[in-house]
């Protein structure tokens, strides 16, 4: 049974309570550094940038605000950088549930290690796309905007003039970080009074013991459970509608081509993807430096050739590389300059392929990625019944 404790919130400001909690980790030597989203421009600024920042001085946690509905990039790859190879002291990383799951995938692909990191997840209401967040925060002070968001989101009111929650978040059926060492509970919790902290791992348990926080009233934990279930049900429904629409829109290769026709091959979706980890992508190698006569030959085949070429090839190849590890964070769509609905497509295919292998990306660190293992007898249908 996971331990759940209560973190007292003063001045009705849960962000402040979370900052104090993180400061305690640093001052009590439980973590050598904290990686968390931090407002980098004072007072929100015109950009309102909230970037993952590695903080070692507790005094500088002042504008740290992991609960801000801003999700500029999936920080799993940053944690991978911070944990791969020899470290120095332990790191506490405050991540969204999809970041925790992406990091779990990266660890399984030998791109990071769990040994020296405390993963702190939180109940995630979602975030605004990069283009929308500045419009959301407008000229408000960062804390004020985040508190207003938490209050509105708990009632399901996230969209306003000029800003709507990312579709990936609306379709996310994993809003809580079950795989993190600690999860900060917000759903169904009166966040003006308290935050719930649940330990999911022995490391998390140990940490809570050392911090000596008081156990929570079981009724509070129960209220959170039911709020979580409700949210998952609503999001699953949204996801299923999204899947059905996307499946119809891409039911043939011709339709898939039309779906992707705005793609300019900038490869931003790949750069933003937390689980696309190759140092050198094959699509940037000279394999794709075609000769002029090749283009002419392809064009002659059907009388015309769309330039840039290899768009379908790129996306299908990427799907064969990452769909089994896709956690649905939606950063691909966030990074797309042309509004191609790539998240919808990648999530749909990810759902199909993960289901085919009985796998769920980021579910747990012990489950081997499907293409790294095999069994002697399996998938007989692939070879027409012979194995």
């Amino acid at each position, binding site marked *: 049974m996971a331990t759940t404790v209560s973190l007292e919130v003063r001045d009705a400001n849960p962000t402040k309570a979370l900052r104090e909690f993180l400061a305690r980790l640093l001052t009590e030597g439980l973590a050598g550094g904290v990686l968390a989203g931090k407002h980098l421009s004072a007072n929100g600024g015109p950009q309102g940038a909230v970037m993952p920042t590695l903080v070692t001085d507790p005094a500088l946690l002042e504008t740290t605000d992991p609960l801000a509905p801003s999700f500029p990039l999936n920080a799993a790859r940053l944690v991978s950088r911070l944990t791969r190879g020899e470290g120095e002291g332990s790191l506490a990383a405050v991540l969204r549930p999809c970041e925790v799951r992406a990091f779990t995938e990266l660890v399984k692909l030998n791109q990071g290690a769990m040994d020296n990191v405390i993963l702190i997840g939180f109940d995630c209401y979602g975030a605004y796309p990069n283009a929308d967040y500045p419009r959301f925060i407008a000229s408000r002070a960062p804390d004020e905007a985040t508190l207003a968001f938490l209050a509105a989101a708990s009632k399901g009111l996230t969209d306003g003039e000029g800003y709507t929650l990312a579709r990936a978040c609306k379709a996310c059926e994993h809003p809580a970080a079950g795989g993190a060492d600690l999860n900060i509970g917000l759903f169904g919790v009166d966040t003006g009074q308290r935050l719930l902290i649940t330990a999911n791992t022995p490391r998390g348990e140990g940490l809570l013991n050392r911090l000596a926080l008081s156990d929570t009233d079981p009724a509070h934990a129960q209220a959170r459970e039911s709020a979580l279930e409700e949210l998952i049900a609503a999001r699953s429904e949204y996801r299923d509608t999204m899947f059905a629409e996307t*499946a119809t829109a*891409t*039911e*043939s*290769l*011709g*339709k*898939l*081509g039309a779906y*992707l*026709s705005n793609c300019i091959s900038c490869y931003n979706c790949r750069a933003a993807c937390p689980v696309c980890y190759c140092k050198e992508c*094959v699509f940037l190698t000279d394999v794709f430096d075609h000769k002029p006569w090749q283009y002419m030959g392809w064009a002659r*085949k*059907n009388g*015309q*050739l*769309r330039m840039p*070429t290899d*768009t*379908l*090839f790129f996306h*299908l*190849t990427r*799907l*064969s590389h990452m*769909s*089994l590890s896709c956690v649905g964070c939606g950063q691909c769509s966030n990074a797309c300059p042309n509004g191609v609905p790539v998240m919808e497509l990648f999530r*749909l*295919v990810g759902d*199909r*392929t993960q289901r*085919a*292998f009985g796998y769920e990306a980021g579910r747990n660190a012990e489950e081997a990625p*499907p*293409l790294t293992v*095999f*069994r*002697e*007898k*399996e*998938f007989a249908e*692939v*070879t*027409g019944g*012979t*194995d």
Partner: protein
Amino acid sequence: MERFEPTIVAFVCNWCTYTAADLAGTARMIQSPNVRLVRMMCTGMVDPKYVLKALLGGADAVLISGCHPGDCHYINGNYKARRRVKLLKEILTGFGVDERRVKLTWVGASEGNEFAETVNELVEDIRELGPGETSRMMVI
């Protein structure tokens, strides 16, 4: 009407199916001439990209053929190929590509007749299915 002649790209393992194809040829077995063989060192090195490129380039089907389970020259390459083909089929069928257009078979080095049969069957299947979508469209 002219009979549809499918174009099929086959990635075959050097240690088994390629030898079987050779055997089928030297034994003068009747085979459809629609298949273009690409000799690989193992089905385990058939990158999904090769299959995708062949299909997008206008092939009506792709055949991958390697050693029977347990017979792989490199111990387990064929098992890895089976998982990759499974993955490819999952991805492609979602986009309306008929499952029969990606075929994985096991054909041992001595099974020349088996190879000829596999080829003839596949060509008949694809003839029935008709040309692949990519042979008629501008692939973006």
